[in-house]
């Protein structure tokens, strides 16, 4: 049990290396088995996790470069736990629904490496370790987009890599400087995140460092105006690529905000709430409009996920338990829903080899099962209550309402505009008469696709009706984080905001 995290991180990597030996025809079985085992391990982690303890659990510590304060330091708390589970889950589902034939072996091996990096990012408690996984995750993705993608794949892949790489290098500078400041403050250099959480910084330093980190995170999220790599990456990537990209990789950015920005630079985060919320609102409204304008199913969903990320950002910067816990929950729900949507688009793409909306119409008659599941996912994505989508959106917006009602109203536009583009997508694809002869006798979902999609649907409904098992651990960790922030906040405004940021009966 003590080494479960290392196991979780390195099991896929080892399996990937061994995978080179496995015979081409059986590689898929192998990969699915590995992913399943990995998923089970993560479930065990969840079971063993003690929700009452808000701190880091299953920590592992091993000096790596003691001279420079870099350690192999793993741990998981309520904030990261479910992102880990999400990563393993989505990977498994992705494998099951995989339809790639060409060069499958390389793809699966790189995907397994990718899984390692994904899990690694969420369990790393040492900044450098975090950075290592963070950057390493680009490489398999680069390969996946660049090799299995469609026409513009290489452009998309390089754009994705360079853009994110650039951002994270700036973040790295920030990390190094932060470590130096820690050295100045304590006399010992350290990159371990919990140490940094305890570090109290003067306001101006906070702002600069916050911006350095912000660049790295914002490009990953991606926040407007750094988002333009995403449509290409999604548009060109193969289904599995988009699924994992949307479901997990984007979450790294938002996770970074929660893990680094808020607790390490509380004052800066609070001082910068307004501009960031402004960006987030642009994301919500502007990208929703762009999504509405798309002619390609996949692009609609790509842009929609930017729009949802906007809500996540709002929730994160609500600076209260409701908002932050909501945003974390929304990360998970968006991961599952967008992943499912991309898979669905992938299914139709496998059948027709096009994603253009104009090609479709009236599919509901031909593929009722497909239409049903797609409908459920659409509803989850527009945040209908009792689906997973609602809880996070509701809480995020509710949390941010405390900060600024007017901005919440603008951010809340997402529930209207989201419905607008999603229903348009659904209507043009499934409703109306069956015009295109090519669609006349498309086969409905087959067993393989159904298994993966039904699993996702089940989660969507289950967590929509009973989100508490997930919310409780998140809630505790977030609460303790907020306490910490309030304790270490240096500016008066910040302390007041954090203090006043809960419900009070204000009698007249």
């Amino acid at each position, binding site marked *: 049990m003590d080494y479960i995290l290392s196991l979780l991180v390195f099991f896929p990597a080892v399996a990937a290396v061994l995978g080179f030996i496995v015979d081409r025809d059986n590689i898929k079985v192998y990969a699915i088995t590995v992913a399943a085992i990995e998923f089970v391990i993560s479930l065990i982690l969840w079971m063993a996790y003690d929700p009452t303890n808000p701190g880091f659990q299953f920590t592992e510590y091993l000096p790596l470069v003691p001279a420079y304060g870099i350690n192999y330091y793993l741990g998981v708390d309520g904030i990261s736990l479910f992102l880990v589970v999400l990563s393993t889950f989505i990977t498994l589902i992705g494998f099951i629904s995989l339809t790639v034939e060409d060069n499958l072996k390389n793809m699966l091996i790189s995907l397994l490496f990718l899984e390692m990096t994904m899990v690694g990012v969420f369990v790393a408690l040492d900044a450098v370790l975090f950075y290592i996984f963070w950057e390493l995750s680009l490489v398999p993705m680069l390969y996946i987009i660049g090799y299995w993608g469609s026409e513009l794949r290489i452009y998309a892949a390089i754009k994705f890599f360079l853009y994110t790489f650039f951002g994270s290098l700036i973040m790295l500078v920030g990390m190094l400087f932060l470590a130096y400041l820690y050295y100045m403050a304590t006399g010992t250099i350290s990159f371990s995140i919990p140490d940094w959480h305890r570090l109290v910084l003067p306001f101006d330093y906070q702002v600069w460092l916050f911006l350095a980190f912000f660049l790295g995170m914002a490009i990953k999220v991606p926040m407007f105006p750094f988002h*333009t790599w995403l449509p290409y990456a999604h548009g060109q990537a193969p289904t599995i690529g988009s699924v994992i990209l949307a479901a997990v990789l984007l979450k790294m950015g938002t996770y970074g905000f929660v893990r680094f920005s808020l607790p390490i630079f509380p004052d800066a985060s609070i001082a910068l709430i307004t501009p960031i919320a402004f960006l987030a609102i642009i994301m919500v409204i502007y990208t929703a409009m762009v999504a509405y304008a798309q002619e390609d199913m996949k692009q609609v969903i790509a842009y929609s996920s930017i729009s949802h990320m906007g809500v996540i950002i709002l929730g994160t910067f609500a600076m209260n338990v409701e908002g932050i*816990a909501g945003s974390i929950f929304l990360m998970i729900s968006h991961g599952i829903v967008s992943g499912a949507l991309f898979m669905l688009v992938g299914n139709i793409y496998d059948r027709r080899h096009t994603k253009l909306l104009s090609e479709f119409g009236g599919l509901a008659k031909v593929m009722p099962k497909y239409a049903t599941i797609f409908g459920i996912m659409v509803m989850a994505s527009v945040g209908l209550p009792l689906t997973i989508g609602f809880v996070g959106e509701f809480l995020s917006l509710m949390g941010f309402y405390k900060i600024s*009602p007017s901005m*919440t109203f603008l951010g809340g536009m997402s529930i209207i505009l989201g419905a607008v583009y999603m229903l348009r997508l659904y209507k043009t694809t499934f409703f*109306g008469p069956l015009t295109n002869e090519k669609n006349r006798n498309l086969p409905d979902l087959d067993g393989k696709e159904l298994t993966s999609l039904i699993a996702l649907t089940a989660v969507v409904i289950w967590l929509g009706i009973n989100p508490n098992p997930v919310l409780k651990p998140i809630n505790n960790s977030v609460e303790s984080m907020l306490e910490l922030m309030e304790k270490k906040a240096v500016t008066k405004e910040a302390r007041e905001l954090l203090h006043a940021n809960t419900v009070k009966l204000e009698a007249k």
Partner: protein
Amino acid sequence: MEKYLYITLFAPLVGSLFAAMFGMKPKKLFVGIVASLLLFISFISAVILLVHVASTDEVVKAQLFDWITVGSLNIPFGFVADPVSTVMMVTVTLVSMLVHIYSIGYMEHDEGFNRFFSYLSAFVFSMLVLVMSDNFAGLFIGWEGVGLCSWLLIGFWYHKPDLSRDQNPSISPAWAANEAFIMNRIADLGMLIGLFIIYWHIGSLQYDVVFSHVNLFDISIITMMGIFLFIGAMGKSAQFPLHTWLADAMEGPTPVSALIHAATMVTAGVYLVVRSFPIYSQIPEIGLWIATLGAFVAVFAASMALVNTDLKRIIAYSTLSQLGYMFVAAGLGAYWVALFHLMTHAFFKALLFLGAGNVMHAMDDELNIFKMGGLYKVMKWTAAMMIIASLALAGIYPFAGFFSKDKILEVAFDSHHYILWFMLWVGAGMTAFYSFRLIMLVFFGEERYKKYGFHPHEAPWYMLAAMAPLALLAIVAGFFEHSFEEFVTTLLPEYHFHMEGITKVALIGLTTLIALSGIGLAVYKYSKGGFSEKWKENPIYKLLYNQYYIPQLYDKLFAQPYRELSQIAWKELDLRLVDATVDFIAGIIYATGFKSRVVQSGNLSKMLRWMVIGLLILLVLVVLYSPVR
């Protein structure tokens, strides 16, 4: 008693899921029967609850488990059966049960038979969640749930193509469905904000907590709560300016219109206002505003109904205007009256719609009332029941409408809002006129359908049987006024009339007079072949006929600009500006690379020159940039 609570609530869900299992299979009769049976069970237990609550003034509460628990927010799946909700439950389950039975016949030949029942039962479930929940969040669940089901049911015949507005005023079922959903979403945002306000000030969304603390707050805050909650109500109850979807929603199968868009869902807004009376009774000016809007809608919708030729749309508009009446009552603080009218209206309006359904069947889905006429001969029962319903709607003694609707007018007059009263009074006249215009054109006069080659027939007995109870209720419901009043006023505030008998009688007289004259006019005119054609040239007629051009206006004002804007946002901003900038920077760097290659000319003497130049630069710097100590 919780047991009954859960039975009432979950029986429809079971029915829905059961039907869903056969959703993609060909029609199975038993699916419909099972669903109806389950609804019957649910109805029975609802009645039991009603009796229980009525007899022992205790409120039945039940909590399933916690839904969302974060920070200081705790939302349980909690349900309550108090006078208000029990009344709603009974109404909802009763009407739905009848509609279910009716649908077995109505949807007979539709391949979506099983699907239809799963949607319909799902709707009932959501509606019950809406009315039974003991907190605002739960209400919101039901609120969105009914929205979803109405989306599904309006778009039930999704395969129909989009037509232009003049071919089909509500472009297509799918279109209408989306319109309804999105319009409701707009309102829901308002409602969500309302919930946020409540939460951040009171720290809970439980009715009892909220209502017990609400009076602690500064009036402005309560006003905000009231306004935003009412915005939500406007969406569901299709109040102006969010009303256009209701008429278009008539694209759905008629039973749906009967159940969702007449009897139950659209009244959810009224229910919300009634339910949160502790908030609204604190802020009478908002109440007045609501009442005014209601009165306006009452007349506005009725006026559109006057000229419309579409069987179902006429009834839809009348629903709209009746909702207006209810809001007047609710707004003026006569909550129980609003609730009462809600109930009676549910009965006779559902009846009216189901009758319309029979007619449509008879005329194989023809809706233009000018192609009908003289149907009385072939479908006496339907005709009879529709007449009853219309009389009730028009508010003629002793039909249910008389008691509930006249009460509303009395309230308006009694609270000295004479203008409102007058509007409602006019509205009553219009109501009487258009309902009997409809009756006349459909059932009496020359048999125009013959030239269109229709062969109408009476509906099967069980469909009529399903309508019978409603007809009965449309007649007698009014007489329960007093028992109803004292029952619901155990929770709701009473409304004290303080005007002496004579004015009361006078009012009733006036109302009945205008109603009768409306009926008279309709009967007189249309027995004589109706108004002359030149009316159609009249601008007012055009205006009314085109619903005041509001749908077109919305198209021009919102839909098209949004479409164009988003095109610009994508093509111009995102691709041309944001993305281009990124590529531009990269391009610059790359281009610089090409430029810089000249340094590497490969010519040795040039290379040497570079070295010397480098040295010279250094030496120059020695001179120019003298060291700063």
